[in-house]
């Protein structure tokens, strides 16, 4: 998830796309990746090299390429959609690629980057998600067993505050900086004019370049990535909710996808020629009523829906009344003769 937009946040998009590329390289297919980006970099009028997003100085690696599948783009990247994806409370019309269809044997990797603060993460300059909301969303996922194990990586300022409030089991979290510290960016590219990557993600990616689908590197090595000398901020991690020892957790458990397979040793025996076999009538020939458009929508739901709760604003009368009170008190105290100065 990249939670920023605008040209000067180029590095967040580059971060996210680089992690996306690594994860795809290690075997996870697009159908198992939900990518949320503002996606306003590649075709931004300020981009000197259109249709590209570079992650390394001197424009070595174009992480945009031609098979990036963005599931939530631009204004769809909101706190609400993010929470909907996590908890599964999605409107029925959402396509399969925009859903998180995980079950109790899925390991989930969540990578978030953007601008953050102590206890919150800013989404697209207009809203925030707090660490309590995130922890509650994870708890909702756990209650429905939507994950087996979850790895949460966050690269923002004061990132460690985002994982402080987690309380569901089997979560491991990594952050690029502690509370009170800022995460810094890596290097600007003079040709493009903005910073291209954040330090923490840059070193994580260097680390991931050495991983291949069959590698046995474990999580402890990931914790060592980007010490203070390189990163200037202190990366943190949290493993107390995780049941296994991080020593035994392979990187490919989350970043790649290695499935359990079993050899099929039995067959069933089929009668090759069934005596008296009649070909069944294909089901399409049965007369079916054509579905009217109106029936496809949950009309009952739409009609009876109560109006959405808006945020509570004090009623307009209150403000007027308050001001009337102030003025009355003012003139009562200081005498009515001041009124003529006004009228």
């Amino acid at each position: 998830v990249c939670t920023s937009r605008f040209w000067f946040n180029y590095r967040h998009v580059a971060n996210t796309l680089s992690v996306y590329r690594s994860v795809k390289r290690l075997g996870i297919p697009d159908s198992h990746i939900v990518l949320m980006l503002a996606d306003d970099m590649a075709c931004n009028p300020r981009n000197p090299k259109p249709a590209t997003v570079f992650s390394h100085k001197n424009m070595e690696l174009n992480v945009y390429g031609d098979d990036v599948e963005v599931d939530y783009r631009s204004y769809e990247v909101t706190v609400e959609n993010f929470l909907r994806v996590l908890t599964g409370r999605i409107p029925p019309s959402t396509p399969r690629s925009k859903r998180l269809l995980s079950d109790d044997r899925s390991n989930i990797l969540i990578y978030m980057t953007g601008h953050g603060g102590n206890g919150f993460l800013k989404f697209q300059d207009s809203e925030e998600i707090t660490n309590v909301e995130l922890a509650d969303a994870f708890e909702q996922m756990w209650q429905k067993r939507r994950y087996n194990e979850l790895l949460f990586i966050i690269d923002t300022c004061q990132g460690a505050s985002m994982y402080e409030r987690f309380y569901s089991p089997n979560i491991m979290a990594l952050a690029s900086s502690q509370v009170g510290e800022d995460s810094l960016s890596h290097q600007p590219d003079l040709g493009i004019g903005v910073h291209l990557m954040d330090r923490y993600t840059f070193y994580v990616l260097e680390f991931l370049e050495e991983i291949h689908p069959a590698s046995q590197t474990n999580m402890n090595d990931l914790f060592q990535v980007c010490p203070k000398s390189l990163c200037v901020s202190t990366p943190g991690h949290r493993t107390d909710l995780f049941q296994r020892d991080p020593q035994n957790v392979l990187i490919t458990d989350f970043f790649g996808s290695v499935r359990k397979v079993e050899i099929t040793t039995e067959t069933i025996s089929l009668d090759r020629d069934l005596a008296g076999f009649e070909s069944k009538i294909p089901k399409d020939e049965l007369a079916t009523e054509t579905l009217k458009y109106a029936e496809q929508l949950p009309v009952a739901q739409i009609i009876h829906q109560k109006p959405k709760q808006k945020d509570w604003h004090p009623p307009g009368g209150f403000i007027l009344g308050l001001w009337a009170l102030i003025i009355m008190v003012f003139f009562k105290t200081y005498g009515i003769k001041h009124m003529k100065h006004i009228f």
Partner: protein
Amino acid sequence: ASAQFQLAVPVAVVFAPGSVPGDLPRPLPFRDVQEMELSVNLRTTVTSRYETIYRSTTAQEEAALGAATAREADAALHLLQDTSLGSLTMYVVPKTSSLLPQGISVYVGKHRSALVRAGGGLAALRTLLRQLTQVMSFTASSITAALSDRVPDGQLGPDARRHLKSSLGYEITFSLLNPDPKSHAVEWDIEEAVNRYVQPVLDKLSLVANFSVDSQILYYAVLGVTPRFDKESSSFLLSTHSLPHVINPVEARLGSSAASLYPVLNFLLYVPERSHSPLYIQDKDGAPVSTNAFHSPRWGGIMVYNVEAPSSPQTSLPLHVEVDMVRVMEVFLAQLRLLFGLSREELPPEFLLERPGNEGLADWELDRLLWAHTVENIATVSTTLTSLAQLLDKIGNIVIKDDVASEVYRAVASAQSAIAELAAGHLHSAFQASKEAVTSSERAFFDPSLLHLLYFPDDQKFAIYIPLFLPMAVPILLSLAKIVRETRQRKKEPTKMD
């Protein structure tokens, strides 16, 4: 949430003449109930009740038991018995009967009955009966696997989480992978094969869920793993530890993300390239696997179909290949059974199981699946509703729409009726009720309106309202204080003035 399950199985034990043991406690017919408790965790217990009726055969059953082989007897008996889901019938035949082959003391038929050879007294018979009910209905491990959400991780056996979770529907996709269309022009008559061989199995399983089948052919889809060439057998081998890496590169091209929201089962038939033929899968010991296929739990299966080399080098490429669908379907259907968990557990040597034939699964195997799924569904409903209730307690200002509330009521009512039906031994209605309960509870839990974005920490509330109200409040409060002081003074003044 705590849950008590009572699973009642109606069993009938029918004694053929000459097979009645001498030490019966009461004259036939009589009833007996056996209960066994299995506690899954602190708050979940499962009690199984076997309500057994002991009786002797009717004249028609005796005639059926006079058949030549066990299979014919089974077929004849099937027409005579009460075959409601979940019930079992055991026919005890005399020791000297020729129905059962030598060395076999139990024959389990395709439907819901079994033939048992008498011998020993009632105690030995009871032991055999207990083993038989475990095979044909459910065992402690199958129920524990169904309730795997509630069992602490350490206690789960290897079977837990291997089988497909209970779902309202499944989508089955058959794919033909042809990486080398220049050499092989492969044709498979998948529609015919599905209608002939797969559809009967799915029809039998239609009680469990809705199935939809589709198929596709993918060209230039490679395995992603390079097989080794083995000089001795002059064939190419795929070792066991490279198999897990085969699936992912292919999955990206399978298009399973465009399918429905139900779990997808993929069955892939891979025809190796000319340059990599013949290709065999090696098992742990290095021997080629007879089926040349492997499967991944909860995902599907892959089979490698080798095409023989052309007899003469002058044969024009591409070779026309007509796939032998029966061989392929035998493997795929076996994999389907394994994925669902219908495969047979270890049996004592004197048990003989009848092959289910083209139907794919025996009636009692369907029962096993239904027992496990019903228990799993009810457990899921109870967890879902409890967590929904906890969510609503925590966030007080979520609005519950009317239809969400009615779904919750319906889920609770269906779950209660499912538990009651289970305790009464009606597996069919219990399963239907549990399916309805799961549908309703999922709809209620995942309703889009239940999203709570209403967390306002206290410090944010102060931060917003204090700068607004404090400056406004200062002159008001001071002025009010002044007014109060003035009125007090004025009250005192008239007394002073006069």
